[in-house]
């Protein structure tokens, strides 16, 4: 038991995590590409044309995974941040920092693909619907986190400040979500609302799930790449970095 | 009373100092010396708990200062490079409010007497903004008298002071030590007080 805890802490040190991450990255890339190809195949060649929305609905295969990931990554990021604040493990802060840009990208993609979907379906790029609005706010929260960390030079301080912000954000996301939902449904003046998603054929569900897996693997791979760079930047003057093969050659 | 062992601080990739260790008993004072950028201010901030040292331990009456918290802060007074006085308020108000935040109430007579002792006669009611560099510094230093602390941690207390004020301040520190107080100072000027421990960074 105690042995396992020690092992765990060993991998929580940047020094041993760096090579481990290096070994894992190719695998996640392979998985991401495999799932991606499979997902794209299903979305364009297997999934049938939708009765109501024609071909436009195929956007769902990127829109929904991006939306899911944007929310999920925020949770993971906050969890890492909280862990760092509680246990003072150096790696946690770096993980949170590495995840934030990917999360922001996912939120941006969700907004972008949603807007591109909205134009043909609703006739407008944007409506102030509850889900759309809370996704936009989530994007702002990501940007706030990134901006705060960028504004503080001392990485240790940046980690801690970012952690507090991320945790405050986690408490607030449900509040924001429900308040926006309530706001929107109370005065239902909008002429358009999210069309009920069509009862999705089994294939569509599968396509979406596989695409979601692809996005997931992609996020892990990119976050690991970024965390490796962050580790090097922060630890650049420790001895183990100087002894790295990449540095010596 | 104050015992420091194996203290070390990093800034960026630079190790400012390591293995700093000393003890301070009642009536003793320590002169921290070192060139510009040697890490004196950093050491002092670590001693009062404003900065976290990377290694080592600081104990007050045998307990680590992190654990003591308020009990340590009540017995200690740190005056740094910074003004730490409100420019809009008068010297009198500044002293009174600083004491109130420590949970104490000052007697007006005593406070005015203290200000006179620090050469601020006739400036009690002027906003600090109007005072000269040295006078501002004196307002800050007056807290040494209005607050009873056992350990004084002073970062370059003599800057901006004129000769008379330096004499007055060192006499004050002497009294404090004679009454069983402790002091840790930095200064690039020669110290007008005797019998200090010296530590070079």
């Amino acid at each position, binding site marked *: 038991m105690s042995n396992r805890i020690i092992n765990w802490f060993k991998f929580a040190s940047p020094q041993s995590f760096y090579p481990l991450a290096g070994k894992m990255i190719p695998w996640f890339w392979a998985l991401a590409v495999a799932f991606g190809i499979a997902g*794209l195949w299903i979305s*364009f*060649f297997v999934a*049938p*044309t939708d009765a109501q929305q*024609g*071909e*436009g609905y*195929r*956007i769902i295969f*990127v*829109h929904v995974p*991006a939306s899911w990931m944007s929310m999920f990554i925020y949770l993971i990021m906050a969890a890492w941040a909280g862990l760092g604040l509680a246990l003072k493990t150096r790696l946690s802060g770096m993980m949170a920092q590495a995840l934030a*840009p*990917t999360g922001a*990208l996912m939120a*941006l*993609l969700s907004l*972008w*693909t949603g807007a*591109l*979907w909205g*134009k*043909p379906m609703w006739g407008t790029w944007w409506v102030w619907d509850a889900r759309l609005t809370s996704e936009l706010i989530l994007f702002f929260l990501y940007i706030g986190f990134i901006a705060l960390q960028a504004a503080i030079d001392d990485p240790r301080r940046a980690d801690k400040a970012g952690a507090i912000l991320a945790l405050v954000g986690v408490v607030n996301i449900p509040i924001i979500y429900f308040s926006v939902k309530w706001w929107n449904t109370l005065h239902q003046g909008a002429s358009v609302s999210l069309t009920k998603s069509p009862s999705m054929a089994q294939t569509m569900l599968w396509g979406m799930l596989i695409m979601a897996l692809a996005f997931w693997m*992609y996020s892990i*791979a*990119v976050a690991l*790449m*970024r965390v*490796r*760079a962050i580790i*090097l*930047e922060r630890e*650049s003057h420790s001895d183990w*970095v*100087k002894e*790295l093969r*990449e*540095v*010596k*050659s | 009373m104050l015992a420091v062992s194996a203290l070390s601080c990093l800034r960026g990739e630079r190790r400012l100092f390591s293995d700093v260790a000393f003890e301070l008993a009642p009536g003793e004072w320590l002169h921290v010396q070192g060139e510009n950028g040697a890490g004196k201010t950093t050491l002092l901030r670590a001693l009062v708990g404003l900065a976290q040292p990377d290694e080592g331990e600081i104990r007050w009456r045998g307990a680590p200062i992190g654990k003591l918290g308020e009990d340590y802060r009540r017995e200690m007074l740190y005056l740094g490079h910074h003004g730490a006085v409100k420019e809009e308020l008068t010297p009198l108000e500044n002293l009174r409010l600083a004491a109130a935040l420590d949970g104490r109430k000052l007697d007006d007579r005593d406070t005015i007497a203290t200000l006179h002792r620090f050469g601020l006669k006739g400036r009690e009611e002027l906003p600090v903004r109007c005072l000269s560099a040295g006078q501002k510094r004196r307002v800050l230093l007056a807290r040494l008298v209005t607050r009873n602390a056992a350990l004084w941690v002073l970062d370059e207390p003599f800057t901006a002071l004129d000769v008379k004020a330096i004499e007055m301040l060192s006499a004050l520190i002497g009294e404090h030590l004679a009454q069983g107080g402790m002091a840790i100072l930095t200064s690039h000027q020669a110290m007008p007080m005797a019998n200090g421990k010296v530590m070079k960074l």
Partner: protein
Amino acid sequence: MNWGSAAEFFAMGGHGFYVWGSFGACVLFMIAEPILASGRQKGILRTLRRERIAEDLEKDTK
């Protein structure tokens, strides 16, 4: 197979702009992000190597 021809495939039933706009943006960003990340990694490695060379030189001169 839903598509009679490549042109039909690209037209996406008249929604080509929107569908390809979405998938295109995703692919584009998801290619750009890893490139940026690896660029960051390469950049820091380059400076580390340079620092190492400078250190070696210093040792040699001593």
